[in-house]
């Protein structure tokens, strides 16, 4: 029975254990030093509390907080697509398959809004309307209302962000029936993202190589659109739970395929920073 042995075992499967514990590195050292002296009876309690600090939510959030956060993102998406589809400019989103696809996506986002409002017991008007958003992102996407390419770029950023946002909130919903619903929304957003990536590849200048999945790029962003770097921050990761995926077990899994085959999550704070670029003052997410 050796406490140090146990910590080493954890390190093997979780190479970041000491980083997770880093804010309490000194406490960790103390723990290490006194580990041998702690009686077996007292040890479980001490260990349990230490690992709760390392892995647990430092920022307590309730299920309703998560649903409210998700709802705000769905408002953003729905208003974006709905506005574009109702613009007078007939050539903006071409008729046929493009308009049909955007309509499908728009309808799903509305269904998500209604579902989440229902789950939160909100019966009144929408909490966000079109006027609350600035889809040009303070001029970064100035022609979003007239240029189909720009429209697709922003749409893709929203969908890939949505996928990462739901993923990041999953731990708070762990073991809750709401988690299943959130996952069912999450994979629909991923289907949207996959299709939009193909629309971007087919229509956006210089993006013909864009894959339905997020390929490796040094900074995570495989879209070539620098303005959305934050959306893809960390997607270049090829190590999962301490296991290197590139060439795993002697296979020919490439670096890009290793990055592609696991989508990364974004923290709530990172998602809010991205969403707030498109939300006007006074209505920004906090």
């Amino acid at each position, binding site marked *: 029975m050796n406490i140090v042995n146990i910590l080493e075992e954890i390190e093997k499967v979780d190479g970041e254990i000491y980083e997770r514990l880093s804010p309490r590195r000194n406490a960790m050292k103390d723990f290490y030093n006194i580990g041998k002296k702690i009686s077996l009876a007292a040890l479980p309690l001490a260990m349990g509390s230490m690992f709760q600090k390392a892995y647990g939510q430092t920022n307590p959030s309730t299920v309703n907080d998560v649903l409210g956060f998700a709802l705000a993102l769905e408002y953003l998406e729905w208003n974006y697509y709905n506005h574009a589809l109702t613009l007078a400019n007939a050539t903006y989103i071409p008729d046929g398959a493009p308009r049909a696809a955007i309509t499908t996506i728009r309808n799903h986002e509305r269904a998500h809004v209604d579902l989440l409002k229902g789950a939160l017991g909100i019966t009144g008007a929408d909490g966000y309307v079109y006027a609350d958003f600035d889809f040009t992102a303070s001029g970064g996407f100035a022609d979003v209302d007239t240029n189909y390419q720009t429209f697709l770029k922003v749409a893709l950023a929203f969908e890939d962000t949505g996928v990462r946002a739901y993923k990041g909130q*999953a731990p708070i919903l762990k073991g809750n029936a709401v988690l299943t619903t959130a996952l069912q*929304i999450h994979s629909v957003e991923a*289907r949207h993202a996959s299709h939009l990536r193909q629309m971007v590849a087919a229509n956006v200048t210089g993006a013909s190589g864009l894959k*339905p*999945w997020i390929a490796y790029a040094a900074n995570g962003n495989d879209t070539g659109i620098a303005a959305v770097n934050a959306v893809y921050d960390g997607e270049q990761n090829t190590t999962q739970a301490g296991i290197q995926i590139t060439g795993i077990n002697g296979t020919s899994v490439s670096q890009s395929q290793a990055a592609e085959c696991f989508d990364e999550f974004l923290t709530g704070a990172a998602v809010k920073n991205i969403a707030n670029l498109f939300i006007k003052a006074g209505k920004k997410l906090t």
Partner: protein
Amino acid sequence: MKNNELITQDELQEERLFNSSLGRRSFLQFAGASAAGIALMAAGCRKDRNYGDMNTGATLDFKDDFGVLNYAYALEQLEAAFYVKVASAPPSTFTTAQKAYFQDIQFHEVAHREFFKNALGTAAIGSLEVDFSSIDFTSATSVLGAAMAFEDLGVAAYNGAGVRIKSTDYLVLAGKIVSVEARHAAYIRDIISNGTFADLASLAPLGAVNASGLDGALTPDKVLAIAGKYVKTKINVINL
């Protein structure tokens, strides 16, 4: 490549047995459990766990996360075997781009399979024997139809199993994988019929709810019943 892969896996397995690695999840369970003293002592004594037995079929014991991970491992084995076969000899009508993307998907599924194998270590079930006799690998229609079935089912499987996962880390990992499966599903659906990437009405048998914009979600027993036609190995399910 195949021989290398086998050798490497054997070596890994050997190394694992030697080190008797302790899964993170089991440790966290131990740390929080009231019987932690006993569990920790077990860890200290380097006790081992073994669920896999290739001779008597595979048992998925859903009493803990190992069961869920083995369930995912089984599905990824199935998907990987399918795409390895497709990528080795794609239907003649596949375009260059389609061949390249099916190559990607092949390696995504192989990576998922190997990831679960390594993460499970000695708790991993054995290799499943597949039965693809219902698929005509020379026909694009047959291959795409099967690929769509696998991907849509995979999404529904992860969505339905997520709530069973007790470890935060594994929950997030499952989330990281399921969205990639959904990207595959959408891509394959769009090849079959452009615009059907998220045809939720057609996914109702897998638990999707079109009116609420929800994708499929199925419990493991239902998923395994559907997947059963592609698997020769007997899969036993306990503690579901």
